[in-house]
């Protein structure tokens, strides 16, 4: 038995739409991953601190408010600052296609846009995140 992938599911910013993040968290848990959920209204600092404390392998960010171009790179940069860039960041939410390139360049590994199935997300994590 190898180590199990640990995932932090997080809601940065002020938006309260947590249906998506909760459904994904449950699906990842049902798929056998260890999942921690931050709850709402987290700052990038709070998320990165939790990620390091909980020694997770990746962070899933859910943003519906349009603040993704600011908040997602902020999480990636803080991880770098704290020497935790091995933690993979992925995300999802109401994110227009036009913003994807910017987010990928900022270091976000994968973005799931509206209509993505939970199976796709589970498969992606399984393939791309390894326990460290």
């Amino acid at each position, binding site marked *: 038995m190898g180590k199990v992938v640990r995932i932090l599911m997080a809601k940065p910013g002020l938006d*309260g739409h947590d249906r998506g993040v909760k459904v994904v968290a449950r699906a990842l848990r049902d798929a056998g991953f260890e999942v921690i959920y931050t709850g*709402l209204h987290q700052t990038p600092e709070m998320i990165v601190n939790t990620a390091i404390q909980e020694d997770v392998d990746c962070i899933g960010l859910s943003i519906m408010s349009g*603040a993704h171009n600011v908040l997602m790179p902020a999480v990636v940069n803080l991880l770098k600052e704290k020497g935790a860039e091995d933690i993979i960041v992925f995300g999802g939410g*109401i994110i227009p296609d036009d913003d994807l390139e910017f987010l990928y360049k900022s270091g976000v590994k994968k973005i799931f846009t509206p209509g993505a199935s939970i199976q796709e997300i589970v498969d992606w994590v399984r393939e791309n995140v390894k326990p460290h």
Partner: protein
Amino acid sequence: MYTEEEKKKIEAEYREWKEKVYNKSFERLPPRLERFSTVSDMEVPELCTPADIPDFDYERDLGFPGCYPFTRGVQATMYRGRLWTMRQFAGFGTCFDTNKRYKYLLENGQTGLSVAFHYPTLMGYDSDHPRSRGEVGKCGVAIDSLEDMEILFDGIPLDKVTTSMTINGPASVLLAMYIAVAEKQGVKQDQIGGTIQNDILKEYIAQKSWIFPPEPSMRLIVNTVEYCTKHVPRWNTISISGYHIREAGSTAVQELAFTLADGIGYVQACMDAGLDVDAFAKRFSFFFNAHIDFFEEIAKYRAARRMWAKIMKNRFGAKKEESWKLRFHTQTAGCTLTAQQPFNNVVRTTIEAMAAVLGGTQSLHTNSMDETLALPTEQAVTVALRTQQIIAEESGIANVIDPLAGSYFVEYLTNKMEEEAFKYINRIDEMGGIIKAIEAGYPQREISDAAYHYQRQLEKGEKVVVGVNKYVMKEDIKIPILKIGEDVEEIQKERLRKLRQRRDNNKVQKCLKELRGAATTNENLMYYILDCVKAYCTLGEIMGTLREVFGEYKDPGII
């Protein structure tokens, strides 16, 4: 009405038909689905007959429009007198941007305004607060002070237009700003009309834009109800909302049950504070979702009216008819829209809007086809508004009152919704009321479970969303998207900086100090908040002062 004998006869004939004709037909060709159910997964019979509404009593269960129990509608004339209010929820960028959109909508036949505030305002922060980073003007209009509200309603006569404001934690502050703007226009507070959402319970349950813990939040709500009852008689003091509960993934029954349970919570709180139920209840309004399952939604609205009438009359002993009426706003379901093949969203919204109208709504917002991608463009909003106008003035639907009454299926489903929703309400009563239930995470967990159940059904193909899990197309449809620039944040911060320089800061400090003092007593805070607002204290300063006294609510993070 059927006699016992006739009913038995119909039942026997139905059984015979089902066995010998209906089931027999399936021997050649099996049913299309293994199980037929609503989008909420409530099982649907293949056919309803009088046997499905065995105790149906027209007078008791339906009555006439405008008469108890209001199943057929709250007004006697319904849409023959006046159409529903067409009220498109709008707000983005700065107060200047949104003011322009409002004028555009009013010029195009919209009959009421509905303000969408950006997240910092909803959460009680100013645009220059560190927590507002990246959020300014994105999901709604940035309002930090009375100055912003003056610009937002510039050139819009507040004695002629009614305004709904989707604001909860800071509702008292935005109401105070609205009253102050009206005064500056020369309109007295007893002449203005509109709504503040002011429904904190559904924030804990579903929408999650809370600030304070339940107790001080409920106090602020009671304060606004008391204030408006005395001074702003045309104001709807709470818009008790199921919309967000449904969007968070609840079933139709849960939406109905938790919304009415919240309503019970507010009526009880106001009565406990010594207010007369017949003085304030008529100004409570409701806000429901119009989801895609046509008949389930119509049944939900009809059941809601009948249930609320019973609750107000029997549970709370309200004497006036006005107190028994459930008036409601409807918005079509954002969560049914798809990013894939976005033009299909116009069709979805049309079906949902028809359900709302057939269900007797008092006002309606139709979503725009691009709302899964961003805030709507002007072109998309226009199609959404025209959808309502076509239903109202071309389709003939609005010519007759409650045309689906008496349909065996619709009456069966209406009864079923009521029965199932009362089971939830009884369970919540047993838990000690809605606040106790929320603290125990009960409605939150029920909704989470329903959302996950639906998602799994979707992934298994048991539920279909066209363009997403069936009839998928390789596509590259580009529709125009409204983008809010990051410069809005800078503009707003600069405006705030200038305001803080320009205003009388001694007066600001004095008002905030008095507010803080009053918050520790039992006084009605509305008067103090009005003074603060008029002195150009910012929203963040007012809410910050109250945060220091009341503390903050933290997300229990229930998955």
